[in-house]
């Protein structure tokens, strides 16, 4: 007999991929919050090892911890009229390097951003703080007479670090309930290190 039934899933609450906010800092008189609702797509990630050094060991192989890499923050915005997104990003670009080609110190242009995940009832479930953020790539404008759409503005940002600022009380409670539920049906599921941390 299998350790858990489909009811295990039925009693869970799952994070929807469309319930999020990207909160950017205010720059040059433009509120970062104004860009929040225009962000259509978002991706970011944690540190991980993209390349694992390996040695051969007889007919097996052994992997060893290598350098850690963190993926770029990628965001796609709808282009409004007037275009506050491009104005905002150009302000940010000018903080990195001015018209004369002089670069600023990192503390001038590296900012922090926040990504919030929400539950269906609007409560915040997870808050990620993205540290040392600044734009690195700017959009290619895809204009066409053949299509009927709104211009998308794609940006990539450097990220130095990502920290999970924690989930709300309701999020912790939901996690705890789901773990207790899983335990009660003698699930074979093991509790991850991150979940143990939240439960403490």
């Amino acid at each position: 007999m299998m350790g858990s039934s489909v009811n295990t899933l039925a009693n869970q609450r799952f994070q929807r991929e469309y319930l999020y906010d990207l909160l950017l800092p205010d720059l040059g008189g433009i509120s970062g919050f104004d860009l929040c609702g225009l962000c259509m797509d978002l991706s970011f990630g944690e540190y991980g090892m993209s390349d694992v050094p390996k040695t051969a060991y007889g007919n097996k192989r052994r992997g060893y911890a290598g350098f850690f890499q963190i993926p770029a923050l990628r965001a796609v915005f709808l282009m409004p009229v007037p275009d506050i997104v491009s104005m905002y990003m150009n302000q940010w670009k000018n903080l990195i390097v001015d018209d004369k080609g002089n670069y600023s110190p990192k503390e001038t242009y590296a900012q922090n951003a926040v990504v919030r995940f929400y539950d269906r009832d609007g409560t915040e479930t997870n808050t990620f703080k993205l540290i040392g953020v600044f734009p690195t790539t700017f959009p290619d404008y895809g204009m066409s007479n053949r299509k009927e759409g709104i211009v998308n503005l794609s940006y990539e940002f450097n990220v130095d670090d990502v920290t999970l600022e924690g989930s709300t009380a309701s999020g912790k409670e939901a996690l705890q309930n789901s773990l207790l539920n899983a335990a009660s049906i003698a699930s074979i599921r093991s509790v991850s290190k991150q979940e143990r941390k939240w439960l403490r």
Partner: protein
Amino acid sequence: MAIDVNTLKNNLTNPQRTYLWDILIPSPIGGGDSDTLSVRAQSVQKPSREVGAIHVPWRQSAGLNFPGKLAYTHQWECTFIEGEDHKIHDAIYGWMQTIVDDYDNIGAGDDQIKSDIYLNLLGVNGAVTLKIRLIGCYVQRLGEILFSNDAEAIASYSVLFSFDSWEIVA
């Protein structure tokens, strides 16, 4: 206890008639006549709404569905009788010209081409039983009319409106 016809009779004293309704377009874009549009409307639909389904497969079970996003058709169709005064054509054409002018191919701003439309369901005593507001409407399509010597009919237009959302007002 079994439910008999009297239970239904007591429960449903006044069923909503499908022919007791009217529409109101308080501010037709492009200079149309609100009263004419209201009087000559012949058939409409109460807009639908649905919640999307996120399907999660699981092992050999049938899986589970979780609610997704709220969804509308975003389209609402109304049929109007046309008169020899072609007021319906003028109203709808004027609205569409404001969206995109067919001569110079210039349109008004997105915030200037939308208007709300009200659909009132009426009781047998004439009172409004349900008032629905379709928010952010613009004319998406003005249908064609078939003119033919084979038929005895009145010219009517099917007009497709796009809307953003709808709500019950009262």
